[in-house]
């Protein structure tokens, strides 16, 4: 289904262009990170890629399959995990049930996903009573259980402490190592250095720069990216 092709993507709301003229092809391979300051349009671009929003200009296309079929082969984890009001295991199984999986298969995949994210012991705990870090790991388990080919992550550690952040990053690396394409937004430079294969640097609703991670951190070409890396660009 990859590469994911974005052609002339624009998104206009409230009389403002929140995104404009985004052309991107996201191919299989190491994680792609959308980097940029708050308000740059990272989350918006992720939602457009995932199909939660429809662009007001341009088109999002998967290669070889239509959007409907592609939907079933991708997953997303949000900045604030959305926990259903049921047990941790039931949160994972819920997504599998929507996909029409049989009960035994749901149970097996749920147990596996909880084990992978270190939540096996908490399977029966109400999801809403888990800590922030545990909730985000549960959200990852729920996404991973779906066996996606592409996993979108929207600032998954933005509200976590360093220890929880480390756990989430370890899980993301594991998922990436299993061959899943990671597309993730962050404003955390350290995280971008730790996880990124390539960087898409967004600034004021436009793609300012796109580069392999090593090259980007060695010397960004655009002025905004340089300012951002030096901690000067706050918008």
């Amino acid at each position: 289904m990859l590469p994911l092709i974005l052609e002339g993507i624009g998104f206009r709301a409230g009389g403002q262009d929140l995104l404009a003229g985004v052309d991107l092809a996201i191919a299989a391979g190491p994680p792609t990170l959308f980097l940029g300051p708050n308000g740059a349009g990272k989350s918006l671009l992720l939602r457009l890629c995932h199909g939660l929003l429809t662009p007001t200009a341009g088109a999002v296309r998967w290669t070889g399959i239509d959007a409907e079929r592609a939907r079933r082969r991708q997953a997303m984890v949000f900045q604030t995990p959305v926990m259903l009001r049921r047990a941790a295991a039931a949160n994972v199984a819920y997504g599998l049930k929507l996909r029409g999986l049989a009960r035994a298969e749901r149970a097996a995949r749920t147990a596996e996903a909880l084990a992978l994210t270190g939540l096996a012991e908490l399977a029966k705990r109400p999801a809403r009573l888990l800590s922030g870090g545990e909730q985000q790991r549960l959200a990852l388990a729920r996404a991973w259980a779906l066996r996606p080919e592409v996993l979108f992550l929207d600032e998954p550690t933005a509200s976590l402490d360093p220890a929880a952040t480390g756990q989430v990053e370890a899980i993301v690396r594991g998922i990436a190592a299993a061959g899943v394409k990671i597309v993730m937004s962050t404003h955390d430079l350290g995280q971008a250095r730790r996880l990124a294969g390539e960087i898409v640097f967004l600034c004021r609703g436009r793609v300012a720069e796109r580069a392999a991670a090593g090259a980007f951190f060695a010397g960004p070409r655009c002025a905004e990216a340089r300012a951002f890396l030096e901690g000067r660009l706050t918008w």
Partner: protein
Amino acid sequence: MPRPTFPALFPLVVLLALALAPVARAGERPFITLASTTSTENSGLFAHLLPRFTARTGIAVRVIAVGTGQALRLARNGDADVLLVHHRPAEDAFVAEGFGIERRDVMYNDFVLVGPAGDPAGIAGAPDAVTALRRIAAARSPFASRGDDSGTHKLERELWAAAGIDAAAASGTWYREMGNGMGATLNAAVAMNAYALSDRATWLAFGNRGTHRLLFAGDRALLNPYGAIVVNPARHPQVKVALARAFVDWLTGPEGRAAIAGFRVGGEQPFFPWPKDRTDARGRTGSVPGHGHRRQESTAAIAAAPG
């Protein structure tokens, strides 16, 4: 694993099944629906009469106790099998229009004027009801009217008209139209220190008299006859004519008459079976007028009134 059930609904569904049990039980034995007035129900008359009737015939009687006007409307719509009400002109109209068959005189009592024990308008010594009302109007003492177009209200308006007083013009001042049943009107009268016209049975059984007293009774104009009418099956085929007739026959027969005559509230007899022989009744009417000027605590004074 996700819970398959919906916990909040579960107990409700269980209770639904429980709830339907009494619904299913209804209608086990034959019954008739009797539309009647609040005075007969509230005084406890039906609680006294109906078990005797049911024991004799096996027919249960379901009483809808509303005002005479509403009872007639229910019957007109076919929602009752038989009526026991107290407004002769309306009853006659009901039969004349073909909604009812067989209007039968059942029993009677009288209306009374009640008011604060101090009797500020001085109605206790009035020679007749019309004079009593004139005194209330002259003193501008509060008067609580049913104001609901019931049988009692209709009689009250006739009395005002006979007294030559436009009470409706004073509505909102001393004349208060409650727009409510007899009990609610009496409750209001007690609370407002107001006079009120009540049927004797409701007054006798009324538990919230406060300092109110029966101040005037005994005028033949205050006679209150009750009639029974079987609803016409030609209008409403589902009417249980045979059962309804059995009820009216019993009510006007020796057993029903004895039961009515034997009913007591606080030691007093609130209802009197209609005299079997009208000539006999007429023969005793001479005893009535002399009592009008006295405070009456008993209906006995006008026991011979019909005729």
